[in-house]
């Protein structure tokens, strides 16, 4: 062992750089078994799990917060740091292009359409909002929705729509999500979508839809190939009358008074987005609801 008695021979042994002769001698020593065993046990050890995505998101978070801090700091020193402030603002917008949340809104009585960074199309119905992070979009296609939207999703990684009521994960392609107070509907027009809401987890294929309202889950089929609201109409399949009326308010940007007089009922049918008088007739008359409609476009539901 004498000629091996230097301070690196164990390292050479492990990397396989020891000569055959040296190795044979080393194997004869009692120390060999100890080292061999030690290495065998060590090689069976593992490091704790590493969640790459979680860490990446945390990193982005830090980059974002850092930008905000920079801005606040600069604001405090504006008089003497005017140039720095200007530079930081430019920098901030540069970064925000990548890292800030992007949001799109459709005001009452309007619809908005836009493309996501991957080319997927979104059509937002009246009184709805979508926010998402455009940086890293292609790997993390997740967006938040309040209200109703129609999606034409380009093929790619998992596409997820998060709402207060539940989550829709997309496996293929064209669908609408409508998440309103007390009402949740997902309709699949093409491909497959997975709906998760509370304990419910359901796969919808094209032509299938699901409505969750009043604590009940109602699946149904549809023959529509695009959502009716993209063609100047709103259609309903056994939807609580209250929801239908709030949709009327959103589409025409009006306030309908006297909702407390409504009796629980479900409405199936459609109304036009272009003629309020006609829309009111189709909804209220078929449901035998008494109402008044005056010159100021004020609609008031009467006791019936």
């Amino acid at each position, binding site marked *: 062992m004498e000629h091996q008695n230097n*301070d*690196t*021979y*164990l*390292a*050479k042994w*492990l*990397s396989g750089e020891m000569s055959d002769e040296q190795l044979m001698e080393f194997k004869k020593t009692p*120390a060999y*078994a*100890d*080292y061999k*065993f*030690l*290495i*065998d*046990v*060590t*090689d*069976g*050890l*593992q*490091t*704790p*799990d*590493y969640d*790459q995505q979680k*860490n*990446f998101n*945390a*990193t982005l978070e*830090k*980059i974002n917060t*850092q930008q905000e801090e920079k801005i606040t700091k600069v604001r405090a020193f504006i008089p003497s740091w005017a140039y720095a402030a200007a530079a930081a603002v430019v920098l901030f917008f540069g970064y925000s292009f*990548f890292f800030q949340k992007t949001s799109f809104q459709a005001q009452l009585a309007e619809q908005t359409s836009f493309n996501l960074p991957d080319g997927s199309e979104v059509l937002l119905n009246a009184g709805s909002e979508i926010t998402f992070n455009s*940086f*890293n979009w292609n*790997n993390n296609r997740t967006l938040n929705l309040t209200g109703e939207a129609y999606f034409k999703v380009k093929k790619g990684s998992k596409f997820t729509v998060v709402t207060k009521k539940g989550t829709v994960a997309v496996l293929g392609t064209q669908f609408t999500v409508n998440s309103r107070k007390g009402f949740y509907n997902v309709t699949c027009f093409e491909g497959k979508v997975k709906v998760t809401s509370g304990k419910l987890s359901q796969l919808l294929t094209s032509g299938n839809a699901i409505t969750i309202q009043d604590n009940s889950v109602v699946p149904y089929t549809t023959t529509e190939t695009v959502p009716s609201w993209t063609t100047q109409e709103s259609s309903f399949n056994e939807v609580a009358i209250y929801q239908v009326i709030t949709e009327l308010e959103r589409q025409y940007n009006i306030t309908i008074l006297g909702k407390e007089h409504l009796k629980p009922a479900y409405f199936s049918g459609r109304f036009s987005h272009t003629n309020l008088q006609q829309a009111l007739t189709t909804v209220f008359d078929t449901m035998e609801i008494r109402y008044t409609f005056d010159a100021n476009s004020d609609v008031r539901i009467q006791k019936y």
Partner: protein
Amino acid sequence: MPDSRKSVCEQRIFEEVFNTYSKTIRNFIYYKCGDTAQAEDLTQDAFVKLWNNCTKVPFDKVKSYLYTLANNAFLNEVAHKKVVLKHQKSVTSIATHESPEFIYREKEFKGELERAIANLTEKQRQVFLLNRIENKKYKEIAEMLNISVKAVEKRMHGALVSLRSEIEHFKK
């Protein structure tokens, strides 16, 4: 070389770099401090710095830049505690050629070994685990730590000698 034209200022490249190096850097720090939360925090900080300085770091220098940052970050971390490594044990049965007595005591031995590894100097432990668990060659480790291959070999050797003496009494 097309790589030299790549810039980490591009979000796509930045993420690619993250996916390539973040895990190794995390373990690189973890082997030194034995604290996953701290290791991940410092790893994230290194990438934040990389992003902030993306225009100054040529693509082919990104790797060494990250390791230098990770090293420095660790040195700057004032409150760093003496920690015990908590390795997850793999289920694979080992050393079947050893004596039954040894196999019987394998579990206890693992605990003993973990304690012995934790008692190594930071430098020895980092080199030893990078080689054994991350399967990094001495040359790669030397580059990461910015030291010579000879120095890496010395640390490896020292680690083994120290581990053996630590577990010696356990066998008897």
